[in-house]
């Protein structure tokens, strides 16, 4: 299992889309901070009151889309492309069980996704705080605690979304299909949930506890401990469930 993980990590580090995503997100985050910093209040600028913490909150909200879209791209080029290149064949024929192979693949994908997901808020917060100051939170709130909570929620939600995307990629086997279908699914998931809730009210409760709803609210500064805990354990459970679904799908899959 460790050998498989090492091999997958080696492949991830040589995956061009992984580095492209990291580069684009780093540049975008830096540009966002610099534009805010350079926004002249005497020339109609509107972002004068921004601090590192304000930018972090804004970055977290924007990261919602990065987690969904970025992971679709990474899944397409890291997981599904193995089918297109045929390299999945030699992995399956290598004498490792299919379950171990796909677990290693999905775990490294989740890890890579987490790295991608923390880049934007991290760069925004560090660069923003350096240029504009960290800023203050309401009385009684610890800055370090808030930042760590943000980081923990980002990682947990990314794990949840990455596992769902990874399972889709494992099943679909085609990078184009994976990117397209996962993207459309994430784009319409909220609407579909809410539409279904009109006919079956329990779906609304399901939605409220789903990763799709949790990610819409995770940038909230005033979050109760219960909400925070929910934003951690639900995505983790989703991740575990979808890694299991990925295993089940891969074990039955015939490689063409």
């Amino acid at each position, binding site marked *: 299992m460790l050998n498989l993980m090492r091999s997958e990590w080696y492949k991830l580090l040589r995956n061009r889309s992984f580095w492209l995503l990291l580069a684009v997100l780093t540049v975008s985050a830096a540009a966002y901070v610099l534009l805010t910093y350079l926004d002249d209040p005497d020339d109609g600028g509107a972002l004068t009151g921004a601090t590192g913490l304000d930018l972090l909150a804004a970055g977290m909200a924007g990261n919602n889309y990065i987690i969904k879209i970025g992971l679709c791209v990474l899944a397409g080029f890291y997981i599904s492309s193995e089918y297109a290149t045929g390299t999945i064949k030699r992995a399956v024929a290598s*004498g*490792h069980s299919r379950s171990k192979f796909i677990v290693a693949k999905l775990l490294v994908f989740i890890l890579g996704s987490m790295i991608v997901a923390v880049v934007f808020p991290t760069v925004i917060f560090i660069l923003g705080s350096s240029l504009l100051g960290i800023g203050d939170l309401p009385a009684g709130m610890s800055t370090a605690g808030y930042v760590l909570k943000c980081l923990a929620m980002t990682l947990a939600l990314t794990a949840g979304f990455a596992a769902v995307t990874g399972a889709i990629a494992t099943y679909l086997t085609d990078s184009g299909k994976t990117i397209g279908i996962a993207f459309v699914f994430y784009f319409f998931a909220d609407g579909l949930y809410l539409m279904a809730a009109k006919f079956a009210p329990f779906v609304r409760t399901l939605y409220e506890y789903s990763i799709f709803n949790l990610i819409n609210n995770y940038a909230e500064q005033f979050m109760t401990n219960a909400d925070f805990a929910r934003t951690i354990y639900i995505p983790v459970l989703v991740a575990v469930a979808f890694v299991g679904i990925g295993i089940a799908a891969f074990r039955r899959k015939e490689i063409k």
Partner: protein
Amino acid sequence: MNEYVLRTHQLTKQYKNQTALDHVDMTIRRGAIYGFIGQNGAGKSTLMKLVTGLAFPTSGSIELFGATGGAELVRARRRMGVSIENPALYPQMTAAENLEAHRLQQGIPGRDSVKRTLELTGLSGTGRKKAKNFSLGMKQRLALGVALLGQPEFLILDEPTNGLDPMGVVEMRELLTRLGREMGITILISSHILSELHLLATHYGIIHKGRLLEQLTSRELQEKCRQFIHIKVNLPERAAAVLERELATTAFEVTADGVIRLYAHLDRPAAVSSALVAAGLALEQFMPMGEDLESYFTARIGGGGLA
């Protein structure tokens, strides 16, 4: 030590209404170079996919190094090296990186194995060139290198000479011969170039429409390939009459282009040529010949040859 590397028992694979493999009993002995021959769609790749675990049999069983199922069979696959259909490579990686990814996956100790494999396959000079920019021949060699990395006891190669130029085909044959005969690696190889396979294989399996028609050794093949005297004369009809009258044989055939294939008197070529010349015929061609693998295969599947 198990005498057999691979045995399949009544192995069958069905895709919806199509039977890709039909109760195949294949046996590959340790140290054999097994040439697997069949038309496109005959079932060669399907069998290889079942053996390598890429697909699942509808019925029947696979015995690999004595392991017959479950985790035992999966573990036995660690003793194999595989290259099925197109060369399976990471296009963005160099040759060395492709090998390194596989080395890590298989837990092969020491990076020297990567260097040795690059040298063995003639790819040590490729440097930072990415696999996507390789010629098909280089890709084939790299795929073989990946298959060889863990020093496998059993190699499964599906069309490894596809895309190779004539020199590349010769080099590949020499490499496989060395692997098989000097290093004792058992090889299951399919190829459309039957003349090459003939120079390499020690055993053959002929598959047609999902059924394994025959398995034979190269010696048995030699015995089965019919020997004849190839005769070309100015008047073939008259020559045929001479053969019947003077040599008292009807064991010959006259082909459409007027060539006579004489299956009798193989040990008396001088007597045959003398009889023909004495009858006033001009001998244009006269030589002993034999059927080759291609003609034997074509005859065995009932014409059509390789698609």
